[in-house]
């Protein structure tokens, strides 16, 4: 497992798993721009699309995904050295108020019109303002555990988190805090 810098200053990274040739950020974005992949995905998940978003036209779902992915790409491309990444990522658990070390986070878009965005980037927060993207998903259901493709993202988050702990990437004090949280 290695890591690619997304911002030059090293505040945002993306994991590159040994079995893949590129990092999880670009691999996710590639899927969200691939019409054939998106069509197959929405056909497979048509029941969730109808039940949670009241959308039955797959081409509308594809267009909305491409549009939201484009906005997300611009946000990442436009991150300035002064930008506060804590404003892009939110705790994965909506009910979680306090921080835990190596917290799992998500980036979620706010749409101006129509349904809320189903795109999610998942990340681990190392310390305040430093994040590692571990993947992303089209989340149509209320919880991640409900579907295989979102469950896989939870596994990836855990895999990266365990690696960082094993390799002592976080500092001693931070590690102690994390242990206390456990």
């Amino acid at each position, binding site marked *: *497992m*290695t*890591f*690619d*810098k*997304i911002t030059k*200053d*090293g*505040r945002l*990274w*993306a994991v*590159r798993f040994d079995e893949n040739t*590129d*990092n999880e*950020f*670009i691999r996710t*974005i*590639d899927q969200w*721009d*691939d*019409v*054939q*992949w998106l*069509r197959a995905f929405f056909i497979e998940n048509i029941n969730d699309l109808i039940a949670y978003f009241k959308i039955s036209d797959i*081409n509308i779902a*594809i*267009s909305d995904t*491409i549009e939201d992915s*484009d906005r997300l*790409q*611009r946000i*990442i*491309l436009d991150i300035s050295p002064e930008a506060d990444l804590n404003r892009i990522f939110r705790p994965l658990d909506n009910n979680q108020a306090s921080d835990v070390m190596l917290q799992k986070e998500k980036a979620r878009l706010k749409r101006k019109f129509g349904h809320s965005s189903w795109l999610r980037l998942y990340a681990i927060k*190392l*310390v*305040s*303002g*430093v994040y*590692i993207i571990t993947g992303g998903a089209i989340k149509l259901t209320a919880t991640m555990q409900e579907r295989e493709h979102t469950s896989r993202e939870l596994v990836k988050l855990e895999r990266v988190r365990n690696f960082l702990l094993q*390799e*002592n*990437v*976080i*500092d001693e004090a*931070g590690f102690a805090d994390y242990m206390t949280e456990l």
Partner: protein
Amino acid sequence: MDNDMKTTIEKLEKYASSTPSKWREALEYRQENKTWLRYSQRIAMLMLDKMDELGINQKQLAEMMSCSQQYISKILKGRENLSLETLSKIEGALGISIIKEEQVAV
């Protein structure tokens, strides 16, 4: 940048990939070519709808258009800058109209 941040980033630097990712170039390409990419994506959607309706797969379409299956796969991703020749072949093979002729006032 505070000390906590610096120390953590320095530790992570040791695990940086040996070959840099070209993610930024890939995203900038998409931004610069967004206009025609949207056309390409719409054409891919139209083609996939029609292929489903006619019950034909990529291999069959490749044969009908005398091109490789790999090329059809690229077109269906919605990332190809299609030539007029290819567009005509798609129209002919699937019986769809992609380029609508404009009415010219005489």
